[in-house]
């Protein structure tokens, strides 16, 4: 893990005990290195995000923690105990599945009470607890529905209630919002987050949506090809990507190549630069200290509500800008002047 991250993010690492840790964990399927030498530490009470493109090993990593897969190498430790060979039903970890995996032959309350039934809790008592849990996820009216009669968001909440009723120490969530539409998704993000705060349970949350990962997590691990390429707070990840891959994947940063930097008179290096850090400035505005100003043709302008996304062709490269609704108006085909502060350029490793 990079030094910078540790220093900058006021994380709980030092103080909170470790909930889950992976040390040199690999899971290879024959030639496919689904998870490859991953080291990770998740702290108690943390909302931990796993972000990465499709096939990068997020789900496999989660399944290793849950016990559905066994590592081909390395150790997994959950609350101090090594869990090699411990089956899922003996781990105090519960999962919210990507497809929810609600039991279609049971109604909502029976689904939620399933874990208690398995433990032999009496019918009355488990109903009571299940209803309580459903209240927590605001589904009290749907107690007797079949899963098939619920909307996506409602199903997701049932899955959540079902996982939570066992009072797990760690809750694993595999793209729980992936199947929901945008509106519902935003709403559920807020709900999940506040639920986690309320319960104080450690959440490990998989997503391939950058926005989601950033907005919800205390810390984020970015996966690529089975490896963890960066771990840090959302701000770290977003503003200080360490590799071109992270810069590219997390939001649509501009990557400034050394050659391009030379052409525009910026310090040489491989830099990332966020679109919203670039301002459009009027023609002939005087230079400021520690800034770079470039001129280019406006290629596209896209209305996005709060901002406009605008693409500028500058000296053989394209720069993306997020232009606020007020200020200089970019017009497609015209020339425009863009300026940013040197501090906003973030150096990356050449990988």
């Amino acid at each position, binding site marked *: 893990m990079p030094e910078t991250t540790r220093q900058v993010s006021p994380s709980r690492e030092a103080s909170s005990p470790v909930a889950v840790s992976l040390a040199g964990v690999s899971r290879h399927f024959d030639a496919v290195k689904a998870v490859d030498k991953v080291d990770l530490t998740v702290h108690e009470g943390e909302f931990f995000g796993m972000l990465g493109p499709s096939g990068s090993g997020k789900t496999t990593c989660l*399944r290793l923690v*849950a*016990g*559905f897969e066994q590592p081909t190498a390395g150790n997994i430790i959950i609350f101090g105990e090594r869990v090699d060979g411990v*089956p*899922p*039903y003996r781990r105090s*970890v*519960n*999962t919210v*599945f*990507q*497809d929810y*995996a609600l*039991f*279609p*032959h049971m109604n909502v309350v029976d689904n939620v009470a*399933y*874990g208690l*039934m*398995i*433990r032999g809790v009496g019918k009355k008592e488990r109903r009571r607890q299940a209803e309580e849990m459903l209240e927590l996820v605001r589904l009290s009216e749907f107690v007797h529905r079949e899963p098939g009669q619920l909307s996506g968001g409602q199903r997701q909440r049932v899955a959540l209630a*079902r*996982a939570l009723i*066992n009072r797990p120490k760690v809750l694993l969530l595999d793209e729980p919002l992936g199947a929901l539409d945008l509106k519902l998704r935003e709403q559920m993000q807020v709900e999940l987050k506040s639920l986690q705060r309320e319960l104080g349970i450690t959440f490990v949350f998989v997503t391939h949506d950058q926005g989601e990962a950033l907005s919800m997590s205390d810390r984020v691990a970015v996966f690529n090809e089975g490896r963890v390429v960066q771990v840090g707070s959302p701000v770290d990840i977003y503003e200080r990507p360490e590799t071109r891959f992270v810069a590219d994947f997390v939001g649509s940063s501009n990557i400034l190549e050394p050659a391009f930097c030379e052409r525009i008179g910026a310090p040489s290096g491989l830099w990332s630069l966020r679109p919203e850090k670039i301002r459009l400035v009027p023609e002939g505005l005087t230079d400021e200290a520690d800034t770079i100003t470039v001129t280019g043709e406006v290629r596209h302008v896209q209305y996005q509500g709060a901002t406009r996304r605008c693409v500028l062709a500058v000296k053989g490269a394209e720069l993306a800008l997020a232009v606020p609704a007020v200020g200089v108006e970019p017009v497609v085909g015209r020339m425009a002047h863009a300026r940013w502060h040197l501090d906003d350029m973030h150096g990356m490793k050449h990988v």
Partner: protein
Amino acid sequence: MNTRDASLTLFRGGVLGRLSDLFYRRPAILLALLLGPPLLWIGVVYVGSLLALLVQSFYSIDEFSGRIVREFTFKTYLELLRPSNLDIVLRTVLMAATVTVASAMIAFPIAYYAARYARGWVKGLFFIAVMLPLWSSYLVRVYAWKLILANEGVLNWGVSKVGLSPLVEALLSLPVIGGPSLTFSYIGTFLVFLYLWLPFMILPIQAALERVPVSMLDASGDLGARPGQTFRKIIFPLALPGIVAGSIFTFSLTLGDYIAPQIVGSSRLFIGQAVYVHQGTAGNLPMAAAFSMVPIVVMAIYLWIAKRMGAFNAL
């Protein structure tokens, strides 16, 4: 191809084109054309035949000449209610139920393995292994069992080689299901039915199990269920429609078969034999028709339940 001028491309008429337009405007005509032939065949010819059979069951037979008296009467049904006939019905239904339960039990592991674990060529192998006996000659398979079960047959040969003959003898000395020989006992008949219909049970169970997402099983384990509990609470209930679908076959086929119990059995009739004997040997078509109503009624009830359980999707 100058579609730029007109908004509607009215090119290419032809009879089919115009007919197609008609279908568009009157979808009911198309539906009628699609449904007509199969409905005529199944709905009119087949159901008509069943109704004709129903009518026959209300005729009676002249006892001496054996000719059918075409007058409405309940006489045949009253005869059907004789204890000896009720025995036949009871015997057959019990056999069908036993065969169904047993084949579900044997089929399940095969279907489960094929659905959950078999991949690639192993899966193909399973498919072929299940289908092959199904499509091999039914008659020859029944006869194979006659050879296996005969007193001087393969089974006893093998059993005596390993010194288990007393076991078979003990089995045969059981009341009701026993007999002088496996071929002459209910045990034999049961084994033959079980063998014959087993593939019909495997296939729908496999289909049902293949529709159970793995995540469902993971979820159950995740929530603390041991594998046995997962089986009872999740896998079995979800496979149930498949079992019911399979049992439609095992049940119906047992109800109707007259060849297998004739070849391996104790001369106590099953419904299929009763129908066959009354129709063919005795020429008592009304009685045969009345007997046929038994499996029809049983299967109607069965199908109704199956439909409600969603078993048709697993069919």
